[in-house]
């Protein structure tokens, strides 16, 4: 494997680029993929005239019509199941679940049908589909508009899972997901939909599924995170830098498969790792990363991998912000790792 490159906030892709929010980058990517490939179709609640409640499908209904931008009835099982049927038939559906909290009525379709069709058919059928879903807290939505079901997906063999944190990665990973021959869950950190803008390449910008990005270099501690919590993780890294502590910051971007190679190398090299995720802790995705690090490179560790995560409670309303890993909580964990 090549040395990890620092991916700057500005896109490094050649060709035209425009400054976009994450929501805009997603809508533009969908538009380009739909115009490139007539098999790409969209299905979901309010994805039509409404353009999606976060406007991630803005204007696509007008451009591609009701047969390619399908306003479904209010049923996530119908959305995901129909997407599977379309994919098996040969289309490349992109399903939208309005909030990741509402994936559960369609969870059986994901787990029993989508994830297993390739396996159970011996490869005769497959499910090249994408399920997009706004996820995560920090929007005062209470527990049914704030959850992060990523661990459920990661635990389900047959699914791929990505969770970008920047407009540019949102575009690049979504494009890769659409072109992937397996089902990909694209989780989108809704609290960052409109809060950050950056240059997003307008060409066929792809981000490889399974490849993490290094956001900061540093040799004292490694911070691993993804999605919405990247913002807090970077803040923590900045604070550490001011104290003269070098934190390498890894944005996983993909959770299944995840970039074990990069993370294990970093863990082995630096010896101190803090894992940051806003998902609940128990049997969460960061438990997996922690267990893998121990199994593979425990000898090189100077401190145990420490998790800074959402709590094992339903997502609260009044404590919308306190639930999330804050820079302070991350710094406390770094402190523990450094002084272990």
């Amino acid at each position, binding site marked *: 494997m090549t040395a990890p490159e620092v991916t700057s906030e500005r896109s490094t892709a050649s060709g035209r680029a425009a400054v976009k929010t994450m929501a805009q980058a997603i809508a533009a990517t969908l538009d380009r993929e739909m115009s490139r490939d007539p098999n790409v179709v969209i299905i979901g609640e*309010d994805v039509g005239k409404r353009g999606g409640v976060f406007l991630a499908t803005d204007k696509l209904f007008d451009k591609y019509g009701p047969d390619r931008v399908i306003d*479904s009835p209010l049923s996530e099982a119908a959305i995901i199941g129909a997407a599977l049927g379309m994919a098996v038939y040969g289309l490349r559906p992109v399903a939208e679940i309005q909030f990741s909290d509402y994936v559960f009525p369609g969870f059986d379709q994901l787990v029993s049908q989508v994830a297993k069709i390739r396996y159970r058919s011996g490869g005769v059928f497959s499910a090249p589909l994408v399920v997009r879903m706004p996820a995560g807290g920090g929007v005062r939505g209470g*527990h*049914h508009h704030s959850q992060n079901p990523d661990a459920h997906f990661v635990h389900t063999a047959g699914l791929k899972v990505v969770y970008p944190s920047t407009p540019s990665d949102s575009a690049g990973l979504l494009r890769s997901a659409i072109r992937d021959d397996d089902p990909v869950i694209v989780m989108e950190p809704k609290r960052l939909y409109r809060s950050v803008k950056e240059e997003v390449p307008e060409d066929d910008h792809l981000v490889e599924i399974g490849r993490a990005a290094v956001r900061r270099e540093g040799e004292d501690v490694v911070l691993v995170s993804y999605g919405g919590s990247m913002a807090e993780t970077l803040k923590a890294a900045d604070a550490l830098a001011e104290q003269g502590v070098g934190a390498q910051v890894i944005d996983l971007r993909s959770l299944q498969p995840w970039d074990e190679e990069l993370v294990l190398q970093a863990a082995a090299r630096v010896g101190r790792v803090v894992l940051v995720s806003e998902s609940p802790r128990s049997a969460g995705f960061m438990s997996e990363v922690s267990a893998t690090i121990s199994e593979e490179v425990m000898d090189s560790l100077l401190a145990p991998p420490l998790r800074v995560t959402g709590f094992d*409670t*339903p997502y609260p309303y009044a404590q919308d912000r*306190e639930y999330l890993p804050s820079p302070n909580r991350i710094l406390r964990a770094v402190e523990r790792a450094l002084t272990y």
Partner: protein
Amino acid sequence: MIRESQGFQPFTDEPIRLVGDGGEWLGPAEVDLDRENLGPERLKGFYLDMLTGRLIDERLGRLQRQGKTSFVAPSSGHEAAQVGMAHALRKGHDWVFPYYRDVSLLLALGMPVVEFAGQSFGTRADTARGRQMPYHPGSAELNVFTVASPIASHIPPAVGTALAMKLAGKSQVTLCSFGDGATSEGDWHAGVNLAGAQGAPIVFACQNNGYAISVDLKKQTGSDNIAVKAHAYGMPGYLVDGMDVLASYLVAREAVERAREGVGPSIVEFVVYRYGGHSSADDDGRYRPRQEVELWRRRDPLDRYRRFLERRGLWDDAAEEQARAEIDATLADGIQRALEAGPVPVEWMFEDVYADMPSRLAKQREELIG
């Protein structure tokens, strides 16, 4: 039509309507409202409850626009259906499974304004301790199951209470309220079908406002209306003008009493319209023409019913003025108290996950708070 021996007809093509746009009585001439338990006080009560719903809707909408609450779910246009349902129930005896748009239903059932507002503000006035976003209240005293956001997820639990009632034998009934979009969810079907198979004492009350956010009924389902879906479960389905409070009340009452007497469950569809956006986060201009909204506003449940009362000499401008003043005062007071109750403490986040806090959570609390 009204309370003949067989009661209302299920599966009518047109909604059952008893009061016309001008407030005129459309029902059978011989009906004696008094005998229907509809004396003057009750008739006026309907209006007061609808007015309360309208005014709190407007007031909370203003507070939201001022940034004083994070979210509202407009319900203007739905008042008659909700007030009709509330009056059809034995308050605090029957169970109610509302959805987020049911403010008129809940206040008419007797939920104090301070509780409703407290829940919305997530202050200490919230009996649920600040756990959910606005418009998600519940009440142990009123047997009101706490609202949950996932659409139709309350249907199977509602049926569960009705099954339990059969064992308890206390002549209770469950009323379960939801929108037209909810009927597409698998859980809706699973619950209604179980009720049909078991003959559970429950009424499924659909407020069909023609939209699930932006998705209109044609895209929602292939059937002409919701009531007709009752065929699938072997139960009657009543189609009612949900902007006519008398029709709403009398049909709901019949369905409730039918369940109470052990005859079985039913579906009641209330045809309504929401004047506002889906929520304060919506932009309904993207999917509905303004003329459509204006057209429905002309059938306004309050205006129409006020004319009905006026024709009977039960209402006039003075009564209106006084009622508004009193309701405004009640709302202002409840909202004020809800705001003043102050924020809930951070550590409440870790409570009520289980009956007793597991050591794991206690440690996590420590991690945050020290």
